[in-house]
């Protein structure tokens, strides 16, 4: 024990979202109409409303033109306008140059070279001192204080709407783990209450009024933005779009916490057990648009079902049959079934609305599943595998060609050399044919690891959407590691300068930190694992773009 040190175990609110609201500021917030109806006594003793407001919110003051949220960024917080006005940019959004986007800062030449002697010999070395309070536990984009580069141009060329005092926005991205769908900027000098998603989750959980309000707004916002994003509806005028939005149904299939039971489901659930969204042979009453999650398209083959493909966000099902029925005047049954994979949000646009507003101006759609249906059965294995293993969730999965891999572990050593002397992946994982998907973070489309992080230490990078961990705010609770359906997050005991394990002064238990692949975001080399493989056996791939392994063979 002589070479071990004691320290204080990090707690839920050790790192508040901002400098912390004063009692007077909390009183002012609670007195506002948006918060006045919240019944504080319904909050549990360990999670009082005042402490949520103190620790999970911060007051932000912005100048006119300053960006509040940017389209495409992964935000972890929602906003309430306390004073002033904001403008929201309607689709199509502002171009990148007006939004002042910047690239991830990589190490310079000197920083890169100096790693050769500065890299620590002791793995997972951390200072015993508590790190500085971070500016934000997430990625709200406030720290850089970005401005819309040319407001007159933005207002002239782009449709905007004004949000007044008391408006709540940003909850869609904060709770849905999806990128911001619109950009918003301060129209006047503005004062905002920013609530990180952990606080928003608690308020929603314990207050019925906020829960209803958030859910209604969530549904309304999702509907509007997703209809606008679909090419089928992009050319419609605002009035027609409003009619379609009013008639569209918002449906949810599967469990929101699909990751919790994923491994159990994997053992027990066959495709037939998945919730059916639309059944082959039935006559559908509307077009199905995937809003979040994944759904598999299946067709009956013999006495079983065959996975033809899967649909992700923005993809639709049933269009061909509906259009053909409208054209011929005779009902057409669905040629395929649609089933929820884990959790999926679906928009159902009624047939009557399509026939009246969309089909007349539309060319005959091609049968998107014809190629998959004609595919040899021998090629089905790949599709069944990636759906069964939920690999379509991974846009940056690590794939190893075992026909080339000499098991030399140069990739593992390179990873360790660039990450505190400890690799951020293990060269093990699911195998199909001669391809192995290793236990390396896939930077998922639906990053369920973000759910439940008490401090927001694990978050989406605003620059490129990779999932990264803020080491200084990680409290080592293991929630993310337990949530990851793919076992790609590893908890490690941190060490001090004498290689001793940091221990909690209260209970003597080791202090843990969550670690995972960060794609070597700061390294000039890019992912060191890919660079280090002498046999080109290892690559990072996007399973969403991959419909077979043929393109990977070389």
């Amino acid at each position, binding site marked *: 024990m002589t070479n071990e040190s004691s320290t204080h175990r990090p707690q839920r609110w050790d790192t508040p979202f901002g400098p912390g609201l004063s009692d007077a500021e909390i009183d002012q917030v609670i007195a506002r109409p948006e918060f006045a109806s919240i019944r504080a006594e319904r909050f549990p003793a360990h999670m009082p409303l005042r402490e949520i407001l103190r620790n999970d919110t911060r007051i932000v003051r912005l100048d006119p033109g300053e960006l509040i949220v940017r389209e495409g960024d992964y935000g972890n917080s929602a906003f309430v306008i306390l004073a002033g006005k904001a403008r929201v940019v309607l689709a199509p959004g502002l171009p990148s140059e007006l939004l002042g986007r910047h690239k991830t800062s990589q190490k310079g030449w000197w920083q890169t*070279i100096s790693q*050769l002697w500065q890299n620590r010999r002791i793995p997972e070395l951390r200072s015993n001192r508590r790190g500085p309070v971070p500016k934000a536990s997430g990625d709200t984009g406030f720290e850089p204080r970005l401005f819309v580069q040319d407001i007159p141009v933005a207002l002239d060329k782009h449709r905007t709407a004004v949000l007044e005092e008391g408006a709540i926005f940003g909850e869609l991205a904060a709770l849905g783990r999806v990128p911001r769908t619109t950009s918003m900027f301060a129209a006047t000098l503005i004062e905002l209450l920013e609530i990180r998603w952990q606080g928003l989750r608690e308020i929603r959980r314990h207050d019925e009024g906020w829960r209803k309000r958030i859910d209604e707004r969530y549904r309304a916002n999702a509907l509007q933005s997703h209809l606008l994003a679909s090419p089928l509806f992009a050319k419609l005028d605002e009035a027609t779009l409003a009619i379609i939005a009013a008639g569209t149904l918002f449906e949810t299939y599967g469990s929101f916490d699909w990751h919790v039971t994923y491994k159990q489901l994997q053992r027990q659930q066959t495709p037939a057990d998945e919730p059916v969204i639309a059944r082959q042979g039935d006559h559908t009453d509307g077009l199905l648009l995937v809003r979040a999650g994944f759904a598999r398209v299946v067709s009956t083959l013999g006495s079983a079902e065959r996975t033809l493909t899967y649909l992700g966000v923005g993809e639709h099902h049933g269009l061909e049959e509906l259009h053909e029925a409208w054209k011929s005047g005779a009902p057409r049954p669905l040629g395929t079934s649609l089933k929820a994979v884990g959790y999926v949000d679906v928009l159902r646009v009624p047939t009557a609305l399509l026939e009246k507003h969309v089909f007349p101006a539309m060319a005959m759609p091609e049968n998107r599943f014809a190629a998959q249906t004609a595919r040899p059965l021998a090629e089905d294995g790949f599709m069944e595998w990636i759906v069964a293993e939920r690999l379509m969730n991974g846009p940056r999965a690590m794939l190893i060609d075992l026909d080339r891999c*000499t*098991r*030399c572990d140069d990739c593992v050593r390179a990873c360790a050399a660039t990450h505190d002397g400890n690799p951020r992946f293990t060269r093990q994982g699911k195998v199909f044919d001669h391809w192995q998907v290793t236990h390396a973070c896939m930077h998922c489309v639906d990053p369920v690891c973000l759910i439940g992080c008490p401090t927001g230490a694990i978050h989406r990078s605003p620059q490129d959407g990779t999932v990264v961990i803020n080491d200084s705010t990680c409290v080592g609770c293991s929630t993310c590691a337990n949530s990851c359906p793919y076992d790609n997050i590893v908890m490690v005991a941190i060490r001090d300068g004498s290689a001793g394990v940091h221990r909690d002064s209260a209970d003597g238990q080791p202090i843990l930190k969550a670690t995972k692949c960060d794609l070597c975001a700061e*390294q000039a080399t890019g992912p060191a694992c890919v660079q280090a493989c002498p*046999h080109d056996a290892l690559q990072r791939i996007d399973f969403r773009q991959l419909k077979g392994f043929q393109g990977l063979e070389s």
Partner: protein
Amino acid sequence: MSPFGKAIHLLPLIVGALTLLGVPWLWSAQARRTLGDPAVITGWWLFGVFVLLGAFNARKKLSVLPLGRASAWLRLHVAGGFLAIALFWLHTRSLWPTGAHRQALAAAFYLLSASGIVGWLLQRTYPRQLADTGLEIIYEHIPAEIARLRNAADQLVLDTTRDAGNDTLARHYMETLHWFFRRPRFFINHAFFGSKHARAWVRQQCGVVRPYLGAVERERLESLAALAEEKLQIDFHHAAQSIMKRWLLVHLPLAAVTTILVVWHVLLVHAYGR
């Protein structure tokens, strides 16, 4: 990738190799015509290629530096290795030089080249065979996996003895298969002869006892055979992965010996050669 595509992919390497060989060849021919010493030109050229070959190992240690993909370095290393052999013959103007020191240097160089070629071939051959087993195991986990199989086999035999009230299978197991499950076996056969003898041995041990077993014991024997089959796969992984890891323990020391002899050769030539 199509054959044409591969050729295009390798074109810079081929052109580079021909240049690296052609330049010293022409230069030394020119030196010969002007009564110069072509061995000095080819010798230093060969030394340069030798340094380049050694740089591959350095690249592996410097993964934080943006030095290009290791796969490109390996291609360069392999092409450079073959080029070094050609340059060596151009330099010595014979397959086997005269003089003890030069012969020692040539022997070290040939052994180094041979170990490199063998290693390269092994790395092109074993991975596919390993993938074909359908089993993937990390080398360091092999002892634990064998222990798991051994414990499972021991338990199976104990249960069979208890359930069948007969120790025929247990006796046979202790006399034969227990030895097999104890640690990796048939290394040479797995490594170089396709595991056929190892698989035949297991089949023989299972077959020879089958006539003496009752229904329950026969059923358990099938389970034991399945465990043995898994062990065979692990043994193959052990043999192949051991060789792929350890051939470098031959190649790298030979590289060190050759380097020392090369430096000594350069010192001797420049001290006494003129």
